[in-house]
């Protein structure tokens, strides 16, 4: 133990004799480690930005679709049965842990009219305000519609940039009223621009309104269902014993839309419990990594709600954005590989620098080595001394490098506003790598020194 301490002391003394050269020797390692740390931290930032960007494309999103119907062996394709209800959506929000937000989707189509202009939007979506969160779609002007609007089937909508351009041109659309399939909707907000989707369709060409508005006021198909639905809701309220899935509105405590039926009235007009079906549910998962778990949780919730027996197939489908997820994964991998290559190159350069100087040092100090051997140093002592010198050089370089790397990363954070983050694993790895480089590249010179013949070494000029 004391020998070890003394060996380190001897090495430190030897390094102190040549402070300038020791520092310059470190430079290679300093640059290498600084590069690794800075790249790791900046890379983390870039990766975060990247993930955010890809997430905004919907990489973290799941789409729950109703199942398929088949008759006589002919499948009607996905969505051909209506098995999803807004209550399913509420249950998913309530009963899963991995979900950021979920929103029902109801689709419609129709012509938009404003003044003397008209336009047929690509997409008319009825949903809840959570949808904007799921889609990560910030508002450009105005505001989103509210949960209150959803409860009241409010005649409001949020439009995309394309619609603003087509119908309003230079006018401010906020507060203006446009007609969709002959229903007047007040524009409360304009979404920010999202551009084309991955498949080239214009994502900004859309109208978003409360799903109740779309369902009950615009898409005529299920209007009667909606009417009877309201009856069902009140019925379920007055007769809690009745098994019903249809809580019409997301917020149960809301003011009832229709006058409540008395018990007698309800008994007089029995109505079948009917579903308010929705086209799909958009689910935003917390992180891309949790998608498999979220998928499982949603499946469990829906199977239970739909009273499916174990041997029955799912009456819904959950789709994830596999392509986007793969892109995300490959991006992260790419950045990781890039960093690794940069790190390897700079560390090898630094290591060769160390080896070079150590070899010079061994040659230059041949007499010293001879003397140390003459006074009783064994080969192992000499080996350790030079090895410790190399490792100390590398570790010093490593520490300086970590400081510089952190500094660079802070500069980038301050001036480029990238979300760089301190990476403890990178620091730990750098220290280990620096020591390893010291050992690997210091070993040969140290070994050479330890093999010197004391007689020759003492005579060396």
């Amino acid at each position, binding site marked *: 133990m004391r*020998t070890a301490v003394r060996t380190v002391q001897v090495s430190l003394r030897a390094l102190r*004799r040549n402070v300038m050269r020791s520092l310059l020797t470190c430079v290679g390692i300093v640059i290498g480690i600084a590069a690794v740390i800075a790249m790791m931290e900046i890379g983390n930032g870039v990766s975060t930005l990247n993930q955010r960007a890809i997430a905004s494309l919907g990489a973290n999103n799941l789409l729950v679709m109703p199942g398929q119907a088949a008759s006589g062996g002919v499948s009607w394709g996905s969505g051909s049965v209506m098995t999803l209800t807004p209550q399913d959506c509420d249950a998913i929000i309530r009963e899963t842990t991995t979900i950021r937000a979920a929103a029902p989707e109801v689709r419609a189509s129709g012509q938009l009219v404003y003044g003397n202009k008209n336009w047929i939007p690509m997409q008319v979506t009825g949903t809840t305000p959570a949808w904007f969160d799921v889609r990560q779609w910030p508002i450009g002007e105005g505001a989103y519609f509210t949960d209150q609007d959803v409860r009241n089937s409010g005649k409001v909508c949020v439009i995309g940039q394309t619609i603003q351009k087509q119908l309003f041109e230079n006018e401010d659309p906020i507060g203006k009223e446009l007609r969709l399939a002959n229903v007047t909707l007040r524009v409360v907000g304009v979404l920010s621009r999202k551009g084309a989707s991955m498949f080239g369709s214009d994502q900004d060409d859309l109208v978003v309104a409360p799903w109740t508005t779309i369902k009950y006021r615009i898409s005529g198909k299920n209007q009667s269902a909606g009417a009877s639905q309201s009856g069902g809701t009140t019925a379920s309220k007055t007769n809690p014993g009745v098994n019903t899935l249809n809580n019409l509105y997301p917020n149960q405590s809301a003011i009832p839309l229709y006058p409540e039926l008395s018990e007698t009235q309800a008994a007089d007009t029995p109505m079948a419990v009917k579903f308010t079906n929705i086209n799909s549910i958009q689910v935003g998962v917390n992180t891309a990594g949790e998608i498999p778990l979220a998928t499982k949780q949603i499946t469990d919730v829906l199977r239970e709600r739909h009273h499916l027996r174990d041997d029955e197939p799912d009456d819904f489908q959950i789709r994830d954005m596999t392509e986007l997820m793969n892109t995300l994964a490959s991006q992260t991998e790419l950045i990781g590989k890039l960093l690794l290559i940069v790190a390897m190159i700079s560390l090898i350069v630094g290591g060769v620098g160390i080896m070079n100087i150590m070899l010079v040092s061994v040659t230059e100090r041949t*007499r*010293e080595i001879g*003397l140390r051997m003459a*006074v*009783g*140093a*064994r080969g192992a002592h000499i080996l350790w001394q030079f090895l410790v010198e190399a490792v100390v050089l590398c570790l010093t370089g490593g520490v300086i490098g970590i400081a510089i790397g952190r500094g660079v990363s802070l500069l980038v954070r301050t001036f480029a506003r990238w979300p760089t983050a301190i990476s403890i694993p990178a620091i730990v790895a750098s220290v280990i790598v620096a020591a390893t480089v010291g050992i690997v590249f210091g070993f040969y010179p140290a070994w050479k020194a330890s093999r010197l013949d004391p*007689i020759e070494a003492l005579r060396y000029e």
Partner: protein
Amino acid sequence: MKPAQPPSTDLIRLHNVTKTYHLGEVDVPVLKGITLTIDRGEFVALTGASGSGKSTLMNILGCLDRPTSGEYWLDGQEVSKLSTDQRARVRNNKIGFVFQNFNLLPRTTALEQVTMPLTYYTGKLSERDGRKRAEALLDRVGLADRMHHLPSQLSGGQQQRVAIARALINNPPLLFADEPTGNLDSRTTKEVLEMFRKLNAEEGITVIIVTHEPDVAAVARRNIRIHDGLMESGSFDERNRAAPALEVAK
């Protein structure tokens, strides 16, 4: 153990030591059978022309090299067959070296120079005791006021005295000086030789000086002369017969 217990007066006993170098196919015999005894407390000069095998004998005596054949008893221990590491241990414990070119570590204070061999001495001396001993030794060689000086701040004589202090740090019974005055002027040569003489007389340390200078050899009480791989004079038997001065005169 053939010669059961070597008499305690012997510090060094060589028996028919030879050394042969192999240069490719050719064997070059350098030492052709040296038999020699040096007692404790002797002051010996080792002389010989260059190429005589003097340096080789010195290396073997200093445990830096191994003889090709023969026996070498040092302080009661047969060292001719020891491994490299074992010989390093012997050098550390039993032999102090002083060199012609001082061999001080650059940019290292005199005190650190002197404590340096302790780094490898896995013995009983603690850091503080080692330091104390080094200070005492520097004081002894007259450098008490220069303990923290660097070699570049010391004269040649002072540097050699630092080297002597370093050689003595492990309290060796044998002090080996290889041309210790070769780089010194006549005044400092005298100083240094006086130092050796004092150490020999007062401490009873056996001193072997390797030199080619007759007046340096004259200081020693016994002069071993090597010629062509053999001892020409100074063998054990005749040591008390001839006065050293006469040897030199011859």
